[in-house]
């Protein structure tokens, strides 16, 4: 490299035109910034269980929105789901994020991942359920008559309140579950209440969040 420098100076000395073209600098800056912003926006938190590409603003009808998103600062406000029914949004969110463990059928995997279909937790207090999804869950838990001892990751950094509400509504009304829908406001209030709780919940902790209908059947 030390050989290269004098050579460089000679060449630059003979021709003054060899300055980096302005156009290239603009191009390089724009593309590098775009690449970095793109990755930060769609990194999915480097998580192995986030497949949800619904953040990718793909397709012609939404191309104007995609231009807006690229120029917006990285990590800007998450796109609101379009005006589809919460069940449909929730189904997509479930299949993209939850199905890897709880299985596309909601039946879980025996001994490994508890089922969500027919689970008392899913059909119980929505606040407890929301807290589990937001903060994750670890340690022994009894679901549908079987013991599980695993670790569910937290979703609060990945999914917006609206998406969590949608997926909870979907969970509570799919595969034979017949419980009430969950509103975005409920998730928002649980998120606000539990911001101080960093680690994943333990069953005993999360049960204390239950409202009036608490402890109906969870043991």
């Amino acid at each position, binding site marked *: 490299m030390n050989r290269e420098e004098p050579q460089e100076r000679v060449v630059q000395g003979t021709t003054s035109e060899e300055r980096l073209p302005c156009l290239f600098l603009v191009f390089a800056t724009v593309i590098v910034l775009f690449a970095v912003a793109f990755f930060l926006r769609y990194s999915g938190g480097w998580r*192995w269980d986030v497949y949800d590409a619904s953040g990718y603003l*793909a397709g012609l009808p939404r191309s104007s929105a995609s231009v807006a998103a690229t120029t917006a600062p990285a990590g800007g406000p998450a796109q609101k789901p379009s005006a589809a029914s919460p069940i449909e949004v929730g189904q997509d969110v479930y299949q993209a994020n939850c*199905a*890897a463990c709880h299985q596309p*059928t909601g039946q879980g995997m025996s001994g490994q991942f508890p089922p969500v279909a027919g689970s008392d937790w899913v059909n119980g207090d929505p606040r407890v359920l929301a807290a589990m999804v937001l903060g994750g869950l670890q340690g022994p838990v009894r679901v549908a008559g079987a013991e599980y001892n695993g670790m569910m990751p937290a979703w609060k950094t990945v999914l917006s309140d609206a998406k969590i509400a949608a997926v909870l509504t979907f969970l509570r009304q799919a595969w034979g579950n017949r419980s009430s829908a969950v509103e975005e406001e409920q998730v928002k209030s649980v998120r606000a209440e539990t911001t101080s709780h960093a680690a994943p919940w333990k069953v005993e902790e999360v049960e204390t969040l239950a409202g009036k209908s608490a402890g109906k059947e969870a043991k």
Partner: protein
Amino acid sequence: MTEPKRVLLGILLATGVGWLLLVWMPLRKLGPIRPSADGAPFGRAVIGGKVYAANGCASCHTQVIRPPNLGSDIARGWGARRSLPVEYQEEHIVPLGVLRLGPDLADVGERRTEPHWYYRLLYDPRTVYPGTVMPSYRYLFSRVPLLGSPLPDALSLSGRDAPPPGFQVVPGPKARALVAYLLSLKRVPLGETGKTP
């Protein structure tokens, strides 16, 4: 450390980053961390997977269902939801594919369940889809003498394809394995999510 050695080390490090992130970590995190419910695929379907790879089916067919915002795969009924790693976890041949000159096959065993349909397609694709560019895979079939009544697997052929009198066309072992593999491709069972494809 001298400059060339630094460059050499830098090259190895830069290369290693890619290997670590895109090969080693996925193997740890997305690989077969637990035995799947149905166990590993076995028997004829595994051999059929090799036939699928050896004949370059992946040159024109993919085995990936993309999510609804990234393609029309689900709207076309190729699968009920996007593909997930769990559906491939026991497979040694993962033909995700590069080009779609034909339909996606991730879920073809759900759509077509009749082996004879596959035999007919493989033997002469143009009798099933006139004008298609799919090659004929006659070399996977064999012509055998007709002794008494035709074998149950014999193809019912007419016109140009018909074998001479006294002969019948039956799928060879590779064709049988390939069809067993295609029939086993039920990665994303239809109706699993309750959505009509």
